[in-house]
């Protein structure tokens, strides 16, 4: 459980990551008639990953809106609808396809509020199934969060577990700005856990600390959080206690919590699936070194990232191209022995 607080009447229900997202969408659509969903094959098919399964029957084709394979139009339709008082949730079937929609996302959605002097905002959510581990190869497996985090005007959310996925999606839908909501495809079915009932939002910009330990701090994003936690278990059996920090949202970023947790152990390992160069953890590393947290470091910052290479098809190579639990264990062991 990583939600910040639960109300007395809130109950917990075990859900998968996909079910938690569906629950948030369903609750938001029931509560607010401005909310609707559009994307490819989200209706009778239920979405490529089954996230919207059953929602067509519940809400009908006006609000669960199947689109042609036209990502720029999907994104633009969301922007235009948001400008006219709706709260669209657009789904790209694979986050990689956002490349087709970048003009509307980057040049329009992200900039309208600023460019128009704050006269109007663009309250939309872009749901992006992303990441490797499904054998889908280079055009269906990328982790492009740095693209979005590098674009002023966009918010970037990357939940790592079902409870966070639900609470953060509620927040994203209520936010008056465009929010890129990144859902790791492997988590959809493999991540399962207790999820609070009710439509409580988890505020954007609050990191979670799902594990505390004195020897090092692992800051991990997305699916790497569960791998970091698994690694931390193994490290504990070897006498090494790790703190694990899950930023949950990259923009806004809970810098204070990250820095505080880094200062507490003096050793930090940053873990992301995305390629190393220009990756978001480089931003976290920079925030650490340009703040006085630098003085607390007992060893150089270490990063584990995906290779600077496209994701390959071969399953062994695919696995080898992004950090796995043994890689985290190994890196952590090395880090605690330094200097």
């Amino acid at each position: 459980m990583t939600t910040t607080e639960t109300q007395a009447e809130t109950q917990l229900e075990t859900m998968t990551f996909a079910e938690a997202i569906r629950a948030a969408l369903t609750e938001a659509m029931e509560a607010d008639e401005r909310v609707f969903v559009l994307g490819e094959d989200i209706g009778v098919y239920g979405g490529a990953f089954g996230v919207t399964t059953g929602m067509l029957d519940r809400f009908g084709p006006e609000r669960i809106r199947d689109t042609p394979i036209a990502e720029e139009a999907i994104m633009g339709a969301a922007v235009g609808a948001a400008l006219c008082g709706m709260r669209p949730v657009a789904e790209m079937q694979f986050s990689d396809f956002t490349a087709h929609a970048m003009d509307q996302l980057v040049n329009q959605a992200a900039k309208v509020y600023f460019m128009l002097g704050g006269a109007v905002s663009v309250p939309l959510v872009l749901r992006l199934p992303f990441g490797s581990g499904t054998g889908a190869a280079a055009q269906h497996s990328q982790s492009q969060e740095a693209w979005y985090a590098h674009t002023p005007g966009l918010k970037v959310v990357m939940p790592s577990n079902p409870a966070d996925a639900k609470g953060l999606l509620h927040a994203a839908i209520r936010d008056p700005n465009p929010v890129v909501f990144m859902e790791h495809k492997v988590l959809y079915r493999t991540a399962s856990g207790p999820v609070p009932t009710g439509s409580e939002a988890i505020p954007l910009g609050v990191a979670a600390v799902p594990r505390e330990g004195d020897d090092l701090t692992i800051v991990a994003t997305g699916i790497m959080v569960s791998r970091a936690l698994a690694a931390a278990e193994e490290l504990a059996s070897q006498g090494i206690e790790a703190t694990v920090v899950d930023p949950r949202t990259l923009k806004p970023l809970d810098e204070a919590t990250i820095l505080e947790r880094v200062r507490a152990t003096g050793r930090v390992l940053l873990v992301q699936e995305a390629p190393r160069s220009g990756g978001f953890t480089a931003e976290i590393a920079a925030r650490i070194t340009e703040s006085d947290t630098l003085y607390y470091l007992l060893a150089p910052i270490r990063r584990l990232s995906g290779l600077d290479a496209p994701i390959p098809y071969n399953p062994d190579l695919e696995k080898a191209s992004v950090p796995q639990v043994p890689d985290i264990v190994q890196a952590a062991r090395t880090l605690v022995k330094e200097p």
Partner: protein
Amino acid sequence: MVTKLAESKDDAGRVLATMWTIRRFEEAVDEMFARGLLYGTMHLSIGQEASATGACLALRDDDVITSTHRGHGHCIAKGADLGRMMAELLARDTGYCRGRGGSMHIADVSKGNLGANGIVAGGIPIAVGAALALKLQGSDKVALSFFGDGATSEGAFHESVNLAAIWDLPVVFVCENNHYGMSMSVEEVSRLERVADRAAGYAIPGGTVDGNDVQEVYEAVAQAVAHARAGQGPTLIEAVTYRWKGHSKSDQNLYRTREEIESWRQRDPIDRFEQAVLEAGTLDQGEVQKLRDQARDAVRDAVRTGQAGPPSSSDLLGAVYAPSEVDAVSPTSEGAPAEPLPDGAAPTPVAAAAGTRGEAEAP
């Protein structure tokens, strides 16, 4: 039988006032630019006033439009305040975009103008989304998207028209075919005779009108608007026109001849409409001259108003995101708050806080 615009005193006055205001506004802008009073660049629509005026005349105040980089005319025709437009061009805080957008981003959401756009075809998908919202909200409002011939080569145009077609969205696509996408002739970018021929590819109504004839534009758009309002979906209208000025301030007109430009000056949409009004006896010379003078004076006032405005607020980081109740911290990086140094650590200089804004370039 519908009364012609030139035969109704109200309509004729309104049309002439709008067209002259657009013309005088852009002439003033052109001159101010030449005198170094304006920054950046400018895309003028002088010669194209009839399409903006005729199309917007067919709309209600609560209908919405998306516009283009060449959008001053659309903006004025949709009822924008000239003083706030000019203030924007002058990079003032009182401008429509508080000086953050400039010529290519002027919008007046209160008048249903969702904005000019710096990206060719960028407004077309947005108009479709706006139309989707209007339909989902059960309103009878329509969206109208202005774009140029250049935009019809963009994927966004094709995706958008198709989406509007299959969903029967209340949107009117108005292509202002001014013959050139910057320097590229429309004839060189398509094998079709007419832009409007593309409508057939999406099984929607389409047609070409003389874009320098405000009556023709008005009638075609009014019909398309009625069609859209009745829930029958989109229409593609091609308004054939011509820009007298270059694409932007860097244009040396190397791709067209002086004779060609001159031949289009002979088809001046304002002059043509004035002749029709005078021939019909709807207004006399004096009344027409008065409308011209009023337009000139309104633009002069706008320049004064614009110049009187304070410069843009320098709080750029505070302008990026709309305030959100679900934010726990600012989404705009401000760097870490200063923390006490550990015992014995030397206070070495550390780089400036993350997110510190560089000096904004002064307009």
